[in-house]
């Protein structure tokens, strides 16, 4: 087995070199970076196909695995949304669509998109690929655990999808899985469906915990020489903070899922009050359904930021690189991320304004909810100020960034509506809520993912994605998404309730019907437009323009590996040494419009670069 490991000769060489500043050029005192504290990482190098590509311990491969599996699950979520829109826009067109199926599709669409698509993609996908590269580590600190993390996710997805094939089908209780209806007969999938959902969630949490420990310790304890926390790219800050949230919020989901499984399988009454069904008293009694809502939303609200914070981080980096300007207010951005993360644990009951809780609680949670708008708005201003007078490259990546800012502001503003109790109560459970959260945590993070794919694909595959197809993809998605969700705000105002299978002969049926048809048509187009990306990826994998080293002229470490795409171990013989932050763009006096993080100060002494 010994040939599978690095020998540690390089480390000594490195630390003795470090005293003199290392590298080429004239070393000065300013270039000094203190030597490495810990020995170089001991890595297992796979040789067979199985250890290299399947049960692989390389964070980059694991990242791609997460990305592909999350995308696959996301496509299933997309198809479910099409089926829902078919029913809403053109009732009775699909022969097999019953009310039961509709609820099952709603539930699975919600759960898949939030947990198995967005969370897995941002943290598992981008987190695994980018964290070690951006902080200058050879790999995640626990590669084996990282591999187990992905395979737990794989099993979790398997169990989730298996629920389509069990008696009764998947659960149809809505993605919030509220008891008592989630496990009572009459709700679709009340036996097997909800059980598999709970098991799948528990597996997901277990798998995520293993991955999350990796992300946190890699950021805290395995940065390269010179990489301080305040020199990390905001992408890493976003993913790091989101992981902290996940580590503290997922326990509540785990406990809720476990207790509901026991209610379902063993007949305990944690969440089940005394229930009269068709004149008969059920075995259940004495439990509290509200307890589940608290557990669920103590997880559920931080979950929104688990998705949003990595998006905030990634978009900051994309905007900065493609506007050729340093990110405006880097420290403010970091503290805003941390502040939003902390506040997100004190707002959960704004999802429960109509649960009958004490009005004073509503007052408290409305206040904390509105306070979150402050750091969030700061971030939006900083993105705009980064763009202001920048040397903007209006490529596909930048289009997605601009699309994100607009969409996010849009969804954020409706969030301020819904954060207030008195406005929320009439709008609760209407399409206004659907429009709000799809804008703010559906479309907005999706735009970031798309931007990130166009940005980092040259790193992962060594080739550019096709710009023309990319622009088609963007405009169809952007305009299409607005065609879907803008009318939904109106539907909400006229009182169309969410989660209704059919409108029947409601008084607002005349204005709602045409709009629903329009929304459905837009949804089909937007969904189909996503396949442009898949086509683009398949096409450019072989024939795309080769990207070469650092194609976007970025400053951050992931573009500075000796080989593109980076190999296992990332950095060849020597780990990089960091001298500055990741945003030294367009520095007056510099030869080029960017100064990489590894450029020693003596090389740029004549420029107006600031110490970071």
């Amino acid at each position, binding site marked *: 087995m010994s040939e599978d490991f690095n020998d540690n000769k390089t480390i000594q060489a490195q630390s003795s070199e470090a005293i003199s500043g290392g590298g080429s050029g004239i070393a000065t005192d300013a270039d000094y970076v203190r030597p490495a504290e810990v020995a170089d990482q001991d890595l297992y190098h796979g040789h067979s196909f199985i250890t290299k590509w399947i049960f692989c311990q390389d964070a980059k491969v694991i990242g791609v695995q997460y990305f592909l599996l999350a995308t696959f699950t996301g496509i299933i979520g997309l198809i479910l949304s099409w089926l829902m829109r078919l029913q809403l826009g053109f009732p009775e067109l699909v022969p097999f669509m019953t009310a039961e199926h509709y609820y099952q599709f709603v539930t699975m669409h919600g759960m898949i998109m939030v947990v198995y698509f967005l969370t897995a993609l941002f943290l598992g996908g981008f987190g695994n690929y980018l964290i070690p590269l951006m902080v200058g580590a050879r790999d995640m600190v*626990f590669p084996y655990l990282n591999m187990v993390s992905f395979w737990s996710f794989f099993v979790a997805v398997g169990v989730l999808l298996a629920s389509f094939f069990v008696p009764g089908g998947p659960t149809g209780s809505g993605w919030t899985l509220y008891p008592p209806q989630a496990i009572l007969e009459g709700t679709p999938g009340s036996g097997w469906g909800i059980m598999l959902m709970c098991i799948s969630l528990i597996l997901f949490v277990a798998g995520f915990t293993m991955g999350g420990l990796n992300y946190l310790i890699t950021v805290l*304890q*395995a940065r390269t020489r010179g990489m301080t926390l305040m020199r990390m790219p905001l992408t890493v800050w976003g993913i790091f903070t989101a992981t902290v949230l996940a580590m503290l919020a997922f326990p509540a989901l785990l*406990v809720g899922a476990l*207790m509901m499984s026991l209610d379902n399988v063993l007949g305990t009454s944690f969440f089940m009050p005394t229930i009269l069904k068709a004149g008969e008293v059920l075995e259940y009694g004495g439990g509290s359904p509200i307890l589940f809502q608290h557990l669920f939303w103590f997880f559920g609200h931080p979950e929104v930021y688990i998705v949003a914070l990595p998006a905030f981080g990634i978009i900051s980096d994309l905007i900065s690189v493609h506007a050729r300007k340093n990110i405006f207010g880097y420290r403010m951005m970091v503290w805003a991320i941390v502040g939003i993360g902390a506040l997100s644990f004190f707002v959960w009951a704004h999802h429960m304004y109509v649960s009958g809780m004490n009005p004073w609680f509503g007052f408290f949670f409305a206040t904390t909810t509105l306070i979150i708008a402050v750091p969030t708005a700061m971030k939006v201003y900083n993105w705009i100020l980064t763009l202001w007078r920048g040397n903007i490259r209006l490529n596909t990546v930048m289009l997605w960034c601009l699309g994100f800012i607009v969409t996010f502001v849009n969804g954020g503003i409706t969030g301020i509506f819904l954060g207030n109790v008195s406005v929320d109560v009439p709008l609760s459970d209407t399409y206004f809520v659907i429009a709000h959260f799809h804008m703010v945590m559906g479309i907005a993070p999706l735009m970031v993912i798309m931007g990130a794919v166009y940005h980092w694909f040259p790193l992962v595959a060594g080739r550019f994605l096709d710009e023309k197809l990319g622009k088609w993809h963007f405009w169809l998605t952007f305009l299409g998404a607005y065609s879907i969700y803008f009318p939904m705000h109106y539907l909400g105002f006229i009182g169309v309730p969410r989660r209704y299978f059919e409108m029947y002969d409601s008084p607002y049926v005349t204005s709602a019907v045409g709009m629903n048809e329009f929304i459905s048509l837009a949804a089909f187009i937007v969904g189909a437009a996503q396949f442009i990306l898949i086509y683009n990826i398949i096409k450019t994998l072989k024939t795309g323009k080769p990207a070469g080293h650092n194609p976007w002229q970025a400053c951050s470490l992931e573009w500075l590996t000796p080989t593109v795409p980076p190999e296992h171990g990332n950095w060849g013989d020597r780990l990089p040494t*960091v001298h500055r932050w990741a945003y030294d763009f367009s520095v007056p006096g510099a030869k080029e419009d960017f100064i990489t993080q590894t450029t020693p100060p003596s090389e740029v002494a004549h420029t107006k670069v600031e110490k970071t």
Partner: protein
Amino acid sequence: MSDLKIEGYEFKPGFKGMAKDTGSDQTMFKGVHWGKAMMWIFLLSDTFIFSCFLISYMKGRGSTIIDWPNPSEVFGLHVFGVDVPLLLIAIMTFVLITSSGTMALAVKYGYEKNKKMCGWLILATAIGGLTFVGMQAFEWGKLIHEGVRPWENPFGAPQFGSFFFMITGFHGTHVSIGVIFLFIYAYKTFAGHYDEGKRGWFTTMKGDYVEIEILGLYWHFVDLVWVFIFAFFYLW
């Protein structure tokens, strides 16, 4: 950590030192092994799990309509013709806390490379844990024999049985996992895997005595959680 020395880095005491470490490059917790930092963060997450359990228990106990059974009676033992409340629990708690002591000593002897003492102390800890799980199984058996089930309870509120079996079961699972690892680590210690840095079966990482301290952290945590469960279930 006063004896820790890092080339080119000067430690400062107190809050300033903490701020300096945080602002420095490479590591935030100087000289802390990756695995040890990981265990601390895992335990923080696990704390949230147990907190959710115990808060749910408080909420459940607070909102039942039927009276909660009296713990001194339910958990009492009838020995030599006398009813002794909480006897078994007192012994269980004593055994578990003692095993924390032997664990701490094992860590100390491990760092002194005293393979033999370290191995025996880990084994003693494992046996303490096993005794605890055994007594818990006895207690479960007694309650089940008396008719307490997760879904019903002859002494009062059915939620008593639900929460009791769920929370002690979850904690007992933690103890059992710990016991399994303690036996494995005892074997590895006796076999000298930590002395020679033998690579692990699964993780392929080199063995080191720090692993014993990491397992020790987990073991102390499991004990600490038991103290809370003890207070909330048996004394309330």
